[in-house]
């Protein structure tokens, strides 16, 4: 098994290189959906959850930034 470790690492490195392809135009949206279904997932639902996550994160960030701006405005202006 020890002897196989470097070989498994070579495969792992190749796999890493190839995994990045799913983040590029190498795979069409349809192919990505098919691969997700093959892995036992629901591509449609995953997409929806992702969208919802981003909407909620953006909203949270907007609120935090508004709060920050307001508390900056409350601070007494120095040098006046």
């Amino acid at each position, binding site marked *: 098994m020890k002897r196989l470790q470097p070989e498994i690492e070579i495969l792992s490195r190749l*796999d890493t290189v190839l995994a990045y392809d799913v983040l590029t135009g190498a795979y069409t949206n349809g192919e990505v959906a098919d691969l997700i279904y093959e892995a036992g997932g629901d591509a449609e639902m*995953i997409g929806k959850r992702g969208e919802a996550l981003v909407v909620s*994160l953006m909203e949270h960030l907007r609120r935090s930034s508004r709060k920050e701006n307001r508390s900056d405005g409350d601070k007494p202006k120095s040098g006046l």
Partner: protein
Amino acid sequence: MKTKLNSPLDGDTDWAEVFRRLTLFAHRRLGVGADLARAEELASEAISRFLAVDRGARAQMGSLNLTHDLGSIVETLLSDHRAPCAVGDAERFRQQPPGQRAPTAQRDSDAVALSSPISLLAKGIAGDRLMEGIVLLSLEGILDASAQAVHLISPITEIYEARKRLSRVIAAIRAASQPKVSP
């Protein structure tokens, strides 16, 4: 239809597609038999971290490749301690006995279980000029598909297809190499 993936973040970003791809990427990086729910968690965490970075700071980072940057965050989250490509890997692959690199139609998992990963890889890609070229170039550190297209004097679309075939060969080898766990 929104299809922007590799561009910097803007209002047109198709987050559903980005999230699907990032989940699939995390799933592949988690390895054989990985839980898709865990992959989705990683994708969520990567997006949270990405968006938490101040917009101004992101702008200063110059031109961004959204999905690639998110992929890098997933890598960080996985805390993968991969060693850098070792010198001699390409050589080791080239030195496979000729018999083990001979063309064969046997690429099923039964055959996979009978030999070492590298000789199985050699068998799996034998006779496919592009897959062989991609393996050798990758082991030499030429990882980018467009650079590989130049080296192999082939259109990028053919390189993409060959990389997909190679990915399937590796997945089969890795699946067959997994220790069998009885229920």
